[in-house]
Each structure stands twice: as C-alpha cells, then as structure tokens.
C-alpha cells in the first residue's frame, strides 16, 4: 500500500514537473507592439532557441482590434484567435516547427496598433 501510494505521488510529481515550470525554469515574455497598416498583414516569426532550451509555451496573445484577424502557428497547430492559452504549457517541437508564427491581418481601412506577446517557460539544456 505504501509503495503504491509513493508511486502515485511520484507519478503526480512527474506530471507536475512536466506541466509546470521548475525552480530553475526561465520565464520568458517576448512582446512587442507594431502598427499594422490597413490592407496589409504583418507576419511575426519567433525563432525558438530550442538547441539550448526545453521550451514550453503557456500563452500566445495579441490585442483584439477592429477589422483585424489573427493566426497563430505553433508546434504544427493553427489557432485562428488573438489569444491562446495552454494551461499546462505546450511543448515546442524541436524540429521543423521550432518557431512560432503570428499573422496579423488588417482588413480595415484604418491602421491599427497591435501589441502581442509569447509567454512561457524554458529550462536550459545541459551542455
């Protein structure tokens, strides 16, 4: 019984370790603001430093603006929202998708200032 309980605790800790930042994790918050000219789309590509970090992304965010559409491409997935949240973090795939792409399209006739960020945590790989 005790061994079984310990195993369950260990499994839980393992899941927590996998899904939550560790003590040594680096919390990152990469953000910027741009003016998206009317009738244009701004493609922002975040290149992930996956060679040196194990990266988990918890939030993809862009300001909601009138007549502006948003598309996030991350880890082989596509999100047609201005804001995407991953409660347990989404792991950055360490291959061809080692980047996050945000496409902000301003279909309106007025320039829009849009703030955006990528938020998450990372653990430095042992070299």
């Amino acid at each position, binding site marked *: 019984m005790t061994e079984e309980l310990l195993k369950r605790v260990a499994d839980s800790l393992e899941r927590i370790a996998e899904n939550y930042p560790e003590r040594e994790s*680096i919390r*990152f*918050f*990469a*953000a*910027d*603001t*741009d003016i*998206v*000219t*009317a*009738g*244009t*789309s*701004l*493609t*922002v*590509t*975040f*290149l*992930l*430093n*996956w060679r*040196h*970090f194990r*990266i988990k992304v918890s939030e993809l*965010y862009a*300001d909601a603006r009138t007549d502006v*559409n948003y*598309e996030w*491409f991350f880890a082989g997935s*596509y999100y047609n929202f201005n804001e995407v949240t991953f409660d347990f973090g989404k792991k950055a795939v360490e291959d061809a998708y080692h980047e*996050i*792409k945000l*496409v902000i*399209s*301003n*279909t*309106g*006739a007025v320039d829009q200032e849009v*703030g*955006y*960020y*990528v938020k*998450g945590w*990372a653990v430095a790989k042992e070299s």
Partner: protein
Amino acid sequence: MAKVPKTITASEPIEEVKKITEPIGQKNVAGIQINPAIEDTLTARVDQSYVDNCYVEASIVKMLGFSGAVYENEDTATTDDPRRFETSSKKLRDLIIQVSGNDQLFGNVTNQRYKVAVGEAIGFTRVDLSLLYFKNAAAGQNGTVNILGVEE
C-alpha cells in the same frame, strides 16, 4: 492592450523575432488565404479582370473582324431580272430581310426559289451579301426588299 509588452532580450529562449509586412491577399505558411482582401483591393482586382477580359474580347473581335457596324439597304425591282444589294463582297454577321409590295424569290446567282411573301421577313447569319440574289416572284410584279444587318 491589457498587458504591457516589454522589449525582447537576446538572452531569452526566443532568440530572434522576424517581421514581414505584406499586402493582404498573400497566403500564409500553410498555403491558405490569410483573409479576404479589403474591398478596395477586391474592386481593383475585379476592375483589372474586367480590363483583361475586354482586352481579350477586343483581340478576339479583331481576329474575327467583327466591326459591329449596322448595314441597311432597300431595293425595289424595276425588271424581273435577279438583283442584289452589293456587287462586291459585303459580309454580314446577321441580317433580316423584309419584303413589301410584291412577293420576292431569294437564292444564289444561279437560282432564286425561296419565296418570301409580302410582309414576311427572313433572317440568317454570316453571309456575303454580294452572293445573295433576289427577284420578283411573278413577272411584272415589282417588289421591294428591305434589309437590316450587322457587318462583320
């Protein structure tokens, strides 16, 4: 913006940010249309398409030699001999012929046997008018032939 952004630093796990601005209408990395273009852009495209079509149409018309000019004429018989509107080639794309006065017979240079009675009309397309002959259906009964057509 609800959350204030900060400047990206090189030491973070995101090592680089690239930005590209393009006109809407470009396709995204998945090859999908990013979103509908703005109205002005669409209008411009439609206009350009219209211009292109007009150009193609004009080119085809030029190749086919269709002028669109209206041809009209009238001929009243004075004898029973076959007659025609044109002695040299005059190609019509469409034509309507109406007979008045007395019945007339239509055909080619050799025979005129197709009868069109007074008040009746016939129409056909793509003919060289110099090859269309007509004459009185009955000797001495002079008739009139009216024609309205569109030149090639």
